[in-house]
């Protein structure tokens, strides 16, 4: 992972100029939009710190906790309604997401997977527009499920902040690995802030929850330092 640089604090509506690009392309993440008046600048739509990652990526690092679906995100959701071939899944955004029963690996019109209301699902966002309800799938482009699909019934679902999910999903962050030295566990972290944990004992699940609670308030550096002590 290439290190990112902090470019200062911005408020919604502030214009950001001198945008770096590669082959005239710039990738913008959450919290930014194109400026209609001046073609080569951006406008902040959220309060937070502008972050840049080489060569051409910008986004705003904020403490927002409302999940806004974006295409390609991997999320954990709860099935809330089942009607015919369509499931409605709660992924924590404004609307329920839409998941077809045919979007599972190996499912056909006659052979559908057994999914019930209340089940947990780890899925990928196929479509996410402002005007439409988001659409989920449980297969990749080769029609293989990989790690996606219905999660087993033997786990616990918790909610954490979006900021913490980003910290945990950074492969360089040692928190998950340090906990793994103490006890074995399986975890599914959705970028929507829903986390599913499965461990051998209830005690271990609680330890993980406590660790996340503590990590929420800490900076990345202090997490790494704390993990180093437990080696």
């Amino acid at each position, binding site marked *: 992972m290439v290190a990112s640089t902090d470019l200062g604090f911005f408020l919604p509506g502030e214009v950001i100029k001198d945008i770096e690009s590669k082959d005239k392309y710039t*990738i913008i993440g959450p919290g930014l939009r194109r400026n209609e008046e001046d073609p080569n600048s951006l406008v902040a739509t959220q309060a937070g710190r502008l972050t840049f990652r080489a060569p051409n990526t910008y986004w705003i690092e904020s403490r927002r906790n409302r999940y806004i679906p974006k295409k390609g995100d*991997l999320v954990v959701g709860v099935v809330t309604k089942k009607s015919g071939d369509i499931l409605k899944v709660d992924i924590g955004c404004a609307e329920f997401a839409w998941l077809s029963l045919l979007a599972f690996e190996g499912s056909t019109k006659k052979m559908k997977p057994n999914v019930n209301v209340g089940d947990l699902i780890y899925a990928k966002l196929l479509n996410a527009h402002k005007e439409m309800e988001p659409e989920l799938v449980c297969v990749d482009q080769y029609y293989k499920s990989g790690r996606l699909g219905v999660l087993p019934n033997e786990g616990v679902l918790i909610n954490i902040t979006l900021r913490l*999910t980003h910290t945990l*999903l950074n492969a360089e962050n040692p928190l998950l*690995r340090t906990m793994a030295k103490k006890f*074995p566990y399986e975890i599914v972290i959705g970028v929507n802030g829903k986390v599913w944990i499965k461990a051998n004992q209830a005690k271990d699940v609680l330890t993980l929850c406590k660790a996340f609670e503590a990590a929420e308030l800490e900076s990345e550096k202090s997490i790494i330092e704390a993990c180093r002590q437990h080696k």
Partner: protein
Amino acid sequence: MEPIKNVRLSKGILEMKFMKKSREQVLKDQEDAESQEMYSREITEEMKKSGHTIFREASMTICKGLADGRLSFGGVNPEVEKLMEATYNKALAEAQKREEKDVSDEHMAKGYSTLVNTVNNKFKTKKAKNKKFQKPNAAEPLI
């Protein structure tokens, strides 16, 4: 000789039975031309709006290069751990490698380039080292 432009078969000929193949070709060409026209118009409009830089919206996952969220540790789910090898563990190994590298590439290149000069000096003959412009002997005739 000028090349013949826009030779077209008439509708009557194209509708004949033996012209089936060429009719298909003509229809396909027409469709292609139409779609290309539509496409090019769209792009130019977008180009005008965005000026020089084209902005592409992406999720935080792409911006920060986040890993897949399904992870297993200590053999709870061997299937997931197998899939982790290719992605999570690889990213991890790369990060560790970067950390372990005590001499950065730039530093190495700088050090090495000076080393080349010193070794080069060693092999130079004494004559070559103190090469100075020497005055010609005045007593010696020039030609």
